[in-house]
């Protein structure tokens, strides 16, 4: 049985104070606090690339677990903002920087905010198919590379961050059934859309999708796992914005404390938002956790995590 064994994280120390943008964007601080949610956005250093964020999350994982690189049989990087426009794949660069063994399989996955949940399913299936017991799922999607600071729709939301999730045969959490979905006809809702390669987002389209499709997906996923909303200790929802988290929470009739918004100090870290919630020691005792990622694509995925009883 494999599952999530530990999670290392990295949030760069650099910050953009979004409160300094309120006048420019004609909003007040309440809008930041209660709606977009990110008072500050984490931003990587100029000389840090996506692979560096992965490595720093890995060093945190090593500190927590003592994991030796030589034990790793596969490593997957989920990003849409890779080093060098994606050639070579960022996982190869991470492989080199961390000194992973030549026998270690590495590949990238191109997904945005649904990436952690998809990635979890992909790496577990890949490991099970090949008899592996030690793999790492990296998520690192530094949107500071593509956000236009003058764009109100996006520059108040996103922050840089990364996670390295150890998948192994002594798990803390195992996964239930997954439920995935895509609306490719809406792919233009979040995309690189400007000639200079900057991000464009139709906020209304993304909100409507998140408020309608995601709660239904979560409820259907719970039903497939023979669970109800009341059975869940924690809803680790992708931290798109506070308003989106609050809206989904209301649609599911979930108590405030069970579906937190935690990204006020660093922003929407795309595919790293869910592992950042899971790595919070305050959530370590949660025995049944929904994880739901949704966004770019449009793409969505959810599953439930079950705490493994270690008999301690």
């Amino acid at each position, binding site marked *: 049985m494999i599952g999530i064994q530990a999670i290392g994280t990295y949030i760069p120390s650099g910050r953009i104070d979004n409160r300094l943008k309120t006048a420019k964007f004609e909003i007040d601080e309440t*809008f930041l606090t*209660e709606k977009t949610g990110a008072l500050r956005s984490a931003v990587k250093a100029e000389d840090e690339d996506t692979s560096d964020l992965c490595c720093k999350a890995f060093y945190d994982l090593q500190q927590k677990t003592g994991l030796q690189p030589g034990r790793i049989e596969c490593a997957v990087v989920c990003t849409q903002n890779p080093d060098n426009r994606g050639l070579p794949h960022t996982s190869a660069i991470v492989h080199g920087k961390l000194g992973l063994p030549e026998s270690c399989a590495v590949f990238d996955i191109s997904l945005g905010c649904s990436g952690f949940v998809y990635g979890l399913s992909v790496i577990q299936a890949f490991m099970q198919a090949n008899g592996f017991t030690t793999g790492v799922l990296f998520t690192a999607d530094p949107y500071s590379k593509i956000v236009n600071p003058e764009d109100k729709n996006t520059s108040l939301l996103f922050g840089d961050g990364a996670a390295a999730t150890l998948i192994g045969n002594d798990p803390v959490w195992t996964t239930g059934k997954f439920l995935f979905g895509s609306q490719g006809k809406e792919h233009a809702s979040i995309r690189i859309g400007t000639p200079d390669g900057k991000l464009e987002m*139709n*906020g*209304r389209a993304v*909100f409507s999708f998140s408020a*309608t499709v995601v709660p239904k997906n979560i409820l259907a996923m719970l039903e497939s796992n023979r669970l109800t909303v009341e059975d869940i200790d924690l809803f680790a929802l992708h931290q798109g914005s506070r*308003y989106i988290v609050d*809206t989904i929470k*209301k649609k599911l009739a979930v108590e405030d404390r069970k579906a937190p918004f935690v990204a006020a100090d660093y922003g929407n870290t795309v595919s790293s938002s869910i592992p950042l919630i899971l790595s919070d020691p305050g959530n370590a005792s949660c025995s049944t956790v929904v994880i739901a990622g949704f966004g770019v694509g449009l793409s969505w995925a959810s599953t439930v995590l079950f705490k493994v009883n270690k008999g301690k």
Partner: protein
Amino acid sequence: MHATQQDIISILENAGLSADVSAIQGNTDLIKEAGIDSLEMMSVYLGIEEKFGIHIPDQDLDRLDTIDNIIQYLQKLPE
């Protein structure tokens, strides 16, 4: 498409607005006078779409600035 003032007020009440819905009159500008912000308006638009089974194109949103104008907009749509 038939829509009443109560239909729209119900949508506003269910949208979780920070504004006091009871103070909103038919001709109150929802953004400039009632103080509904841009994100809350997305909930209002979605509420209208779900209630009446329609899709409101982005280019029509500026016309939906008061309860009266929303009703007028809906009345011009075919049943």
